[in-house]
């Protein structure tokens, strides 16, 4: 067990590799109750969220969800988030546990002058992510609500194992599945029903290896207050045709470094390792691990724009040794 953002969480239940492969081949579940949740409600909710987030909230219909980010005034990212539209004037924002206080202060300041009400509901939800090619079929046995016909990013209420949950067809593994928002007092019943149905419990270790294979960023690593999202593969989130906080500064960026995926041979890349080209430092790794599916080292990192094209050969400095590192487009593993 490790302490993470005030929660005691397991790195693994049995083995990171076995848990990882269970999610890729069958179904696994993650207790991610540490994640933060804010309600945003009111006549001005859409207008406020258009200003406070990068993606286009006007495209978000009731019962749908979108990935997004909170921009700061310097062209950087306060947090990356998922936004769920749960009503005509009601949105649920899911954010990183380590950023709850920072995001709350930031959004409260931005909300002045908007007809909007914010509620920090982080302690009002348990969150279980059920992921994998069999996840939907297994969950279907525990609910009368039709799960299979729903689309990616749909969200709706239903009962699972006799308890009301908010279903969301979202996740952080690159696999099909649902995330379940549950009243904390009902979480144990739901978890145990899923366990009895054969879903493999997975810890933080597999969550990280899965998201990295899928090419998803982790806040504090690929995205920070100092990184401009336009210099990352997630630049699609930035909708320049609308107005948002800090827009002018963000759009002025010239990307000296770009975020890329890297395949590394003969060792395991880790966060902070240097990337070199002809002996000269041209970047650094923001994340790295061993891919249980590819059985190779994979990572993400910022490299000088000149060396950021897929296929570019670099070297990763791993404990004084130079290993071949090739720039590739994430995801490393496709469903």
């Amino acid at each position, binding site marked *: 067990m490790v302490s993470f953002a005030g929660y005691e969480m397991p*790195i*693994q239940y049995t*083995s*990171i*590799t*076995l848990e990882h492969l269970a999610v890729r081949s069958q179904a696994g579940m993650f207790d991610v109750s540490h994640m933060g949740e804010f309600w945003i409600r009111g006549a001005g909710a859409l207008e406020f969220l258009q200003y406070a987030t990068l993606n286009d909230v006007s495209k978000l219909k009731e019962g749908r969800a979108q990935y997004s980010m909170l921009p700061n005034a310097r062209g950087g990212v306060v947090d990356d988030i998922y936004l769920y539209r749960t009503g005509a004037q009601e949105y649920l924002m899911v954010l990183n546990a380590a950023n709850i206080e920072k995001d709350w202060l930031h959004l409260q300041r931005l909300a002045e002058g908007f007809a909007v009400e914010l509620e920090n509901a982080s302690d009002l939800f348990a969150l279980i992510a059920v992921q994998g090619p069999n996840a939907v079929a297994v969950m279907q046995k525990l609910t009368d609500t039709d799960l299979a016909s729903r689309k990616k990013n749909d969200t709706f209420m239903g009962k699972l194992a006799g308890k009301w949950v908010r279903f969301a067809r979202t996740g952080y593994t690159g696999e099909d599945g649902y995330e379940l928002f549950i009243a904390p007092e009902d979480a144990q019943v739901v978890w145990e029903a899923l366990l009895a149905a054969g879903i493999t419990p997975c810890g933080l*270790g597999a969550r990280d*290896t899965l998201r990295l294979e899928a090419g998803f960023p982790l806040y504090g690593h690929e995205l920070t207050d100092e990184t401009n999202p336009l210099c990352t593969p997630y630049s699609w989130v930035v909708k320049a045709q609308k107005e948002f906080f800090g827009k002018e500064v963000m759009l002025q960026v010239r990307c000296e470094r770009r975020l890329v995926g890297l395949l590394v041979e003969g*060792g*395991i890349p*880790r966060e902070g390792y240097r990337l070199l080209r002809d002996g000269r430092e041209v970047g650094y790794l923001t994340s790295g*691990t*061993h891919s*249980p599916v590819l*059985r190779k*080292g994979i990572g993400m990192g910022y490299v000088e724009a000149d060396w950021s094209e897929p296929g570019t050969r670099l070297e990763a400095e791993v*404990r004084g040794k130079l290993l071949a590192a090739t720039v590739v487009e994430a995801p490393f593993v496709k469903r």
Partner: protein
Amino acid sequence: MNYPSELKYTKTHEWVRLEGDVAVVGITDFAQDALGDVVFVDLPQTGRTVEAGAAVAVVESVKTASDIYAPLSGEIIEVNSALSDKPELINQSPYAEGWLFKMRVNPLDVNKLLSAADYRAVAENQ
């Protein structure tokens, strides 16, 4: 956790089995369990002479990289080449198939190492 009594140990979680003047070295059951799934092993060059306590190999799990120290002074004479394809042998069989390397040593030096009982006390107090 298993601590075979015929082996000698270090505080840094290596085990040693003496075969004449050759020391077979690996990491303990306790160490492999703490590391989790081992996915990569960086082994020393054979022929290299090292001092006791020198970092000579690296065992990497999904979670982390861990240095392996020479338990005794001597010459590296053989490495376990099976580990490059099957690093998981370290988890599955830490005291047999998962051995790391062999060193030619002064057999008397082995007395400087920990007994199984002493090592168990070190490991379980961590």
